[in-house]
């Protein structure tokens, strides 16, 4: 079977787009080569979900025109609740479709030599720094057709760089707004935390259009060098009709920590691939994911932690609620490579089914190539416990309210892990809306 695909944009286009954006030669070259590879590379194959009929490659527009936001008060209502409208001294990036529409950098980050800017500006102004990390140790261009296509067509994203020994106390926030039905987004987020640094980054993908057929091909790379700590929160709420490939990758160096808190609330078909490589000895990865599936959407959530370093620890916690005719696969993979002695791989997946037609599968997988390790997994797929409902209702709350309490409680471990209060509230509100 041939995997040749006729792509909607050719080498000349990519070449001239890159030049037009003022990108350095290495980036233009990377794009052009990636486009070449995208033609022949195979699609990713998320375990137990067939995506061969999903459209990730045919689309009309690479860039849509959007205006800047003159002030935060011009933001759409849903977004205004997410951000601090009052603060002048904050780290906030807002992207409107493909356009960097607002940026604010705190005095703290500037004084400490941090970089937080849109990916185009990063390529222009911090080209060398970007080149050192961009699609190198995290997600590689040639992993599959979609990573290559992503590399070729990146049309949005953000670069966060935290220098050695710098701790950024205030969270860094990015909001990616989807308000044009013709948008197709190839968004690249690169977070680099140098030795002994610490940072918290939180992002939201927000559709303000009700329904759109756009393609979202998102790659995140988090590089935590020795003894660095990165807390990464995300809430994805892309509209029904969209097709989403979101690949979030972490690389933890010696004694580094990466903590993910992901609220995956898209209404379209989604493949979410979240992989954390614990490369350094004593590195630590903690992944908390919540999902609510509804309507007829099909989703695949694969969470992987690969242990290379000795004494590395990986924890995966996934809670999903499935309603209506939603279908979801939850793959949890803990992989301990030979030599990663004294490592610990733990995972837990819980799926709550709210309807007869919903489908959910939790597949815990442990792949262990080393003797001297500990590992464990727990997985369950079930319905709301009628005895819990009985107990709550026996105090007077209605069945609907009792179900609401149980569902919120079920998702709370991840919701509570989100580091920005506004984002936490928003996720709670999204869950409220989706499970009602």
């Amino acid at each position, binding site marked *: 079977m041939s995997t040749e695909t006729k792509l909607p944009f050719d080498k000349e286009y990519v070449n001239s787009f890159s030049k037009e954006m003022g990108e350095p030669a290495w980036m233009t070259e990377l794009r052009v080569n990636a486009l070449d590879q995208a033609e022949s590379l195979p699609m990713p194959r998320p375990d137990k979900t067939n995506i061969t009929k999903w459209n990730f490659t045919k689309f009309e527009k690479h860039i849509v025109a959007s205006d800047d936001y003159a002030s935060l008060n011009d933001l759409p209502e849903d977004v205004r609740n997410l951000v601090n409208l009052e603060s002048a001294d904050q780290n906030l990036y807002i992207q409107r479709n493909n356009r960097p529409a607002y940026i604010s950098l705190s005095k703290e980050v500037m004084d400490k030599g941090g970089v937080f800017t849109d990916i185009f500006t990063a390529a222009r102004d911090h080209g060398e720094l970007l080149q050192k990390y961009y699609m190198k140790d995290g997600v590689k261009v040639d992993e599959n057709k979609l990573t290559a296509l992503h590399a070729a067509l990146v049309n949005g994203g953000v670069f966060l760089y935290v220098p050695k020994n710098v701790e950024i106390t205030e969270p860094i926030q990015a909001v990616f707004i989807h308000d044009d039905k013709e948008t197709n987004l190839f968004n690249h987020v690169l977070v680099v935390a140098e030795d002994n640094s610490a940072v918290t980054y939180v992002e939201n993908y927000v559709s303000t259009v009700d329904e759109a057929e756009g393609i979202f091909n998102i790659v995140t790379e988090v590089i935590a060098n020795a003894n660095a700590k990165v807390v990464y929160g995300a809430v994805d709420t892309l509209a029904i009709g969209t097709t989403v490939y979101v690949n979030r990758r972490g690389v933890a160096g010696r004694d580094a920590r990466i903590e993910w808190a992901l609220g995956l609330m898209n209404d379209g078909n989604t493949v979410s691939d979240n992989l954390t490589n614990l490369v350094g000895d004593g590195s630590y990865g903690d992944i908390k994911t919540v999902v609510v599936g509804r309507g007829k959407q099909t989703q695949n959530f694969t969470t992987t932690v690969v242990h290379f370093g000795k004494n590395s620890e990986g924890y995966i916690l996934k809670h999903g609620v499935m309603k209506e005719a939603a279908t979801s696969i939850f793959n949890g993979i803990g992989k301990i490579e030979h030599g990663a002695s004294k490592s610990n791989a733990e995972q837990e997946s819980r799926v709550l089914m709210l309807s007869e037609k919903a489908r959910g599968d939790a597949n815990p997988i442990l792949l262990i190539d080393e003797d001297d390790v500990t590992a464990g997994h727990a997985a369950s797929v079930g319905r709301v416990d009628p*005895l819990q409902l*009985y107990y*709550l209702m026996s105090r*007077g709350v209605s069945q609907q309210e009792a179900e609401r309490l149980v569902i919120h*409680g079920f998702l709370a471990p991840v919701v509570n892990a989100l580091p920005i209060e506004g984002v936490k509230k928003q996720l709670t509100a999204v869950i409220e809306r989706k499970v009602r």
Partner: protein
Amino acid sequence: MASTLTIKDLHVAIEGKEILKGVNLEIKGGEIHAIMGPNGTGKSTLSSAIMGHPKYEVTQGSVTLDGKDVLEMEVDERARAGLFLAMQYPSEISGVTNADFLRSAINSRREEGEEISLMKFIRKMDSKMEYLEMDLNMAQRYLNEGFSGGEKKRNEILQMMMIEPKFAILDEIDSGLDIDALKVVSKGINEMRGEEFGCLIITHYQRLLNYITPDHVHVMMQGRVVKSGGPELAQRLEAEGYDWIKQELGIEDETVGQEA
């Protein structure tokens, strides 16, 4: 005017097997009743059936609260009508704090816009927790999650004191409690005593009744109330056991034939 909870000829089955075989009982506001009896005689079934446990099926008879048909009501409607059941095995609900849940429970009895104010709620909860000698941090812990047996029982009493039902059924509230916890739990129940509050205590130990003097004592055997009396009946049971009742009534096996 004091309320009345009336149980008439109640028959209840679980998974097709009849456990209660015609229970009659009337409890008025201001009264405390105790139901005693050995294991397996249907005491807990009675409490679960009154509250509406999903596994129990009422096959005959009636339960009314001030003339209103309780059996027609959903579980939450029964609670809002004034019934409360302190459960023998309370569920653990992860992610829902004790305080949030209790506030939902209280507000479910109030009209929209008339919800209890947060300050008033906190003050009330703090004072009741202090009364029950509970760690105030338990308000922010998840409902019953990781609670010890004694903590769960205290938490049931706390809920009762917060919700202030017309009738509380306490299903083996004393089992697994040490003497100090038993005293605290009893203190909570006695605090509720009054014309507006009726109570049905289900126990097989007399010792709880050392701290709470019941107005009426009933003995259950074979899925029925076989004997009723005053507090002296409990004392006699403590001293002499149940055999004399069995002899008096010609009962050989007092259970309803449940396994174990």
